């Protein structure tokens, strides 16, 4: 497989055989390896020396269920450290089938010009895209489909990325109406904007397939993997993830007292019933919307939805738990229609809904709107697209808003907003937020699924749990798998080993795989060390250690010494 190198300063592209050092890397692992090997970690994240890396996982393009996720990596302008965000859609599989290990964009266009990178079979070119400048992500995709054909995949930034706002995301299209696949976290949209790259358009990989070193081994493992996903009571056709989507957990998180509510000031929301997955399903089906759709072809879990308004018109091509938590209960909003409309605006401007929801929560605490005031909140959010000073502040995230308005309650670690689990009542996630090289990010090691093994309100066992989950997440993010697909590979790591050996012929053992997964975290930690990140950056905000969270009166009381020791056994 090749790397597609892109020099934005000279508008030049070329293919390069994958160096041996990157051979065993994919997805998140590859983005981290390239960043550490090829960039100065102390460089300006929005400057010419940062690199934007777009990489399918190791199993991308193979047809393994859920393995088509796309990793996007760069030094984060939000956290100042290494960053990987991944998304579903069709980009991961398509790039892999084009024989591309990664796209690596470096340098910057000389002026404010914006370009489209068009990737087709064996070639790639940069095309001036003045007519796409200023467009939101939905309009950019439609523009690209008109220019390059309906079947192509489009990665794009909206206004937030063009303004280089640190809450900016990258949108990735999928099949049909599944357009809202967002590589959301860490301000990677701002990095893309800083390069002068408005969009990457990838032609369909018609007739192209990835090679298999041992097709029999691979296909047997792939089949068993899909079967085990289907038979899992959480993930199969009668499981909650399929029936209710990611919002299946809303009620449980609320019940556990961990649902971000009114700028993380409460752990349960009195109107949470109207935000539950059960209500989401009932609403969508009652309006002839769609439940159980897929972000990637071949996914057997199918956790997505198409949320429609009361006339049946699609509002957003999946409404997910994290958005419901951060843009719903965290803002005191209990109407899913309101959450969906704000979700659409975030997607169109190219914003991370977690970061933006947290930023708006901070601004409400500062008095710029009221909790539950949908019109007031919408008016604030619209300013991002308009590019007003306040809009740019909102698009820069929760930490920037907190600093600007002198607010102490700012739910961030390493400058990045916390997702939909208050760490005071789910302390394992607090340990992950605090210690992950990615900043506050539930996908780096979500302890919610381990609530029956480790008491979420206790200190005991959280450090060990978080490390185990962070290693696991590194593997999933590097192979291209969805986080939901972890049960079969937890139960039998050999299953993943067989899929990798079948694909590449590496002859790996389970021990080799574990070593590789741990090495990814070591690479990321080393990047951050060189970038100047210190243990003091890996802390839960002080107010969360002091202010008890209702209903359990919990504070985050995992000692700093425990946080600092998380990677001792890496």
């Amino acid at each position, binding site marked *: 497989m090749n790397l597609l190198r892109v020099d934005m300063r000279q508008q030049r592209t070329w293919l390069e055989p994958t160096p041996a050092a990157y051979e065993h890397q994919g997805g998140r692992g590859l983005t981290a390896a390239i960043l550490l090997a090829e960039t100065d970690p102390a460089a300006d994240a929005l400057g010419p020396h940062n690199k934007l890396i777009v990489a399918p996982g190791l199993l991308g393009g193979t047809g393994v269920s859920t393995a088509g996720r796309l990793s996007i990596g760069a030094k984060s302008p939000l956290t100042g450290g290494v960053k990987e965000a991944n998304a579903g859609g069709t980009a991961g599989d398509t790039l892999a089938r084009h024989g591309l290990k990664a796209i690596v964009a470096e340098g910057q266009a000389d002026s404010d010009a914006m370009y489209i990178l068009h990737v087709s079979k064996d070639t790639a070119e940069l095309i001036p895209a003045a007519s796409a400048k200023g467009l939101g992500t939905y309009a950019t995709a439609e523009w690209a489909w008109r220019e390059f054909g309906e079947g192509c995949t489009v990665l794009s930034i909206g206004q937030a990325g063009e303004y280089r706002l640190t809450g900016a995301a990258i949108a990735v299209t999928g099949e049909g109406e599944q357009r809202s696949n967002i590589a959301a976290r860490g301000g990677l949209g701002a990095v893309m904007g800083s390069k002068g790259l408005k969009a990457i358009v990838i032609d369909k990989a018609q007739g192209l397939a990835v090679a298999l070193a041992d097709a029999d081994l691979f296909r047997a493992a792939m089949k068993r993997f899909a079967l085990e996903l289907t038979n899992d009571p*959480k993930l199969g056709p009668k499981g909650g*993830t399929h029936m209710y989507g990611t919002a299946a957990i809303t009620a449980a998180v609320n*019940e556990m007292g961990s649902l971000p509510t009114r700028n993380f000031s409460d752990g349960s929301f009195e109107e949470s019933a109207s935000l539950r997955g*059960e209500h989401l399903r009932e609403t969508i089906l009652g309006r002839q919307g769609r439940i159980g759709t897929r972000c990637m072809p071949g996914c057997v879990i199918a956790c997505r939805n198409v949320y429609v308004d009361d006339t049946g018109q699609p509002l957003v091509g999946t409404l*997910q738990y994290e958005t419901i938590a951060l843009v719903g209960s965290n803002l005191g909003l209990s109407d899913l229609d309101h959450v969906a409309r704000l979700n659409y605006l975030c997607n169109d401007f190219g914003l991370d809904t977690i970061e933006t929801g947290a930023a708006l929560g901070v601004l409400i605490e500062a008095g710029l709107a009221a909790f539950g005031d949908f019109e007031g909140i919408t008016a604030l959010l619209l300013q991002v697209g308009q590019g007003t000073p306040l809009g740019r502040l909102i698009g820069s995230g929760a930490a920037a808003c907190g600093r600007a308005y002198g607010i102490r309650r700012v739910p961030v670690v390493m400058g990045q907003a916390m997702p939909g689990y208050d760490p005071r009542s789910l302390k394992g996630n607090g340990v992950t937020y605090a210690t992950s090289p990615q900043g506050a990010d539930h*996908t780096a090691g979500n302890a*919610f699924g381990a609530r029956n093994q480790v008491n979420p309100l206790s200190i005991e066992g959280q450090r060990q749990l978080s490390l185990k989950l962070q290693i696991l997440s590194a593997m999933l993010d590097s192979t291209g798998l969805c986080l939901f697909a972890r049960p079969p590979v937890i139960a039998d790591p050999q299953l993943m080993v067989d899929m990798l050996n079948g694909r590449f012929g590496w002859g790996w053992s389970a021990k080799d795989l574990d070593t590789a997964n741990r090495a990814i975290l070591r690479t990321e930690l080393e990047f951050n060390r060189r970038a100047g990140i210190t243990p003091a950056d890996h802390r839960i905000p002080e107010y969360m250690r002091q202010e008890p969270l209702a209903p*359990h009166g919990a504070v985050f009381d995992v000692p700093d010494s425990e946080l600092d020791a998380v990677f001792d056994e890496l």
Partner: protein
Amino acid sequence: MFQTRSWMPCSTSFDPTMAVDVELFGQFSVGRPARQVLEVTQGITAKEIALRVGLNPDEVGLVSIDGVLCEMEEAVPGDCRLCFFPPMTGG
């Protein structure tokens, strides 16, 4: 696994029954009342209540009493809110 909770009896009378607010979530609520108040005998466990509302205890992913996770074998106090969740996972 979790510490067994302690609680004060909600009544000093000799009435051996008590009320428990039971709520079912997700697919557990399909074809069953999502919420009901049950009159039960004191000392009853979460597992026994699960059986009474028609759940297979082996299929329960999470059970909580007044928002605190508990074990199926745990005795349920009166005047509490008992929630049964199917297996679920966070993304």
